[in-house]
């Protein structure tokens, strides 16, 4: 059975990679009361842990990730990274954005190499490493393409290589496979798991696809519908690793877990639609 740990995550003895404590996030909109996107809520990601956040669209998943990245300052609460209060941008984190974020005026190779060059790595070394990373995400033949000459999935993989080449300790991913078709999603999921198995970063992975969340992660967090969205469920996924993100879906255990979580998620999805209807 997937265990349901209600609300506050258990305090571990070691410092979490990411810990949010009672954070609330508001958006100011001119001439209106501020929109309370995220209500006070808490979560923690242990070092080396792969955590997925699932919730209905518009509930505040990207907003939460932006707070962890340091791009958004919460109205209340604490953001800690390896035990340190976060000030400014989160230098430990690599962020794969929901939208295309690679520079359209640089080739795939330059987009990835620049991530090292700005840290002072020499041009030749950076290019070598970038070729290597693009090869690992399966783009070895597309080094000289500009983003507009790549498909949506290929652009995402450039983004992934761009993030991974910096070897961040924390990986934030916002619906990275969102616009892709079901088959490509599974292949990308397997690729991600293979890359992750190498050095086990702490991952915070946002998705609206529950199956994908279960297939990839150690824990699945459920976010309630907004406004004042909160983490309302915390499910440990005890499927053995290494996993194959595609094959695991046929595992009987997968179905049990899915059934247990889906009941809770469905209620939130219905709430979202009920409000908008």
């Amino acid at each position: 059975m997937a265990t349901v740990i209600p609300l506050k995550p258990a305090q571990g003895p070691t410092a979490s990679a990411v810990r949010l404590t009672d954070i609330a996030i508001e958006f100011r909109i001119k001439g209106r009361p501020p929109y309370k996107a995220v209500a006070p809520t808490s979560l923690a990601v242990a070092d080396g842990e792969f955590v997925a956040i699932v919730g209905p669209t518009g509930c505040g998943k990207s907003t939460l990730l932006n707070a962890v990245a340091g791009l958004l300052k919460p109205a209340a609460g604490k953001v800690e990274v390896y035990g340190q209060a976060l000030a400014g941008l989160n230098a430990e984190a690599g962020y794969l954005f929901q939208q295309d974020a690679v520079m359209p005026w640089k080739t795939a190779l330059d987009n990835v190499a620049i991530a090292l060059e700005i840290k002072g790595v020499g041009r030749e070394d950076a290019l070598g490493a970038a070729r290597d990373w693009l090869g690992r995400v399966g783009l070895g033949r597309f080094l000289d393409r500009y983003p507009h000459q790549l498909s949506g999935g290929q652009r995402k993989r450039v983004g992934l290589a761009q993030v991974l080449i910096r070897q961040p300790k924390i990986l934030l991913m916002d619906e990275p496979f969102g616009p892709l078709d079901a088959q490509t999603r599974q292949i990308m999921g397997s690729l991600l798991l293979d890359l992750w198995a190498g050095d086990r970063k702490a991952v915070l992975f946002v998705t609206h696809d529950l199956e994908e969340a279960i297939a990839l992660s150690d824990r699945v967090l459920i976010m309630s519908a907004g406004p004042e969205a909160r983490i309302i469920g915390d499910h440990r996924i005890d499927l053995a690793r290494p996993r194959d993100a595609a094959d695991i879906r046929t595992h009987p255990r997968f179905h049990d877990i899915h059934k247990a979580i889906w009941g809770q998620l469905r209620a939130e999805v219905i709430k979202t639609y009920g409000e908008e209807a």
Partner: protein
Amino acid sequence: MSRAGLLSLQILVGVVLLLIWHVGATIPIFGYTLLPKFFFSTPIDVASRVVQMFAGGKIWGHLYVTLLETVLAFAIGALGGIAIGFWFARKPLAAAVFDPYLKMVNALPRVVLAPIFMLWLGLGIWSKVALGVTLVFFIVFFNVYQGVKEVSPVVLANARMMGMNERQLFRHVYWPSALSWMFSSLHTSVGFALVGAVVGEYLGASAGLGYLIHQAEGVFDTTGVFAGMVVLAGFVLVVDWVVTLVENRLLHWRPQSAAAQA
């Protein structure tokens, strides 16, 4: 439509227009010449005058002067536009303070400035350059300003998460974005540099294509006026072609527009 087909249609239109001009100017219809030579010259006269100008060799000096003025006006106007555009885009207070004045100057028809520039800078090339600069500056300025303002917030956030400092952001994000906007208006701004040069010459100079045309007009030499215009048009085509080459070289990262692909 194939390239050759298009080209033959383009040539056909030119030939028909020339034919109408020639017939109208030389063959009386019901004893009445539609396009009297005195006012319209004839295509053959104009063509032979153009050939004469080049054969005599004196046209080259005028072309050189006009080209020099155009290039200088573009370079100075573009540099100014880039500098001020960046400054205003990054410092909204400066932009807010100067905004009404910029709007005022931009709304002014630049021709009225020409006599002032001549008074200040004399009849040489610099008064023409100045006129061109006032035209080029605003186009480049508005585009660079827009280019910096309109940088995709996601691309910017991604670059910052990557760890870029302000200088690196400038070089790898703001600068390419601003340049792409500036180059998308390259045809317009180079065109305006040329307009500044020719109008300036027309109003008072001792060399240049505008001066040639003005001189011919002064003695009712219609053929000379038309010949000057033909040379000017050819000059514009060549300049525009060079700009297209530069543009293709610098903006190759951008998707081709649907029209360009068709």
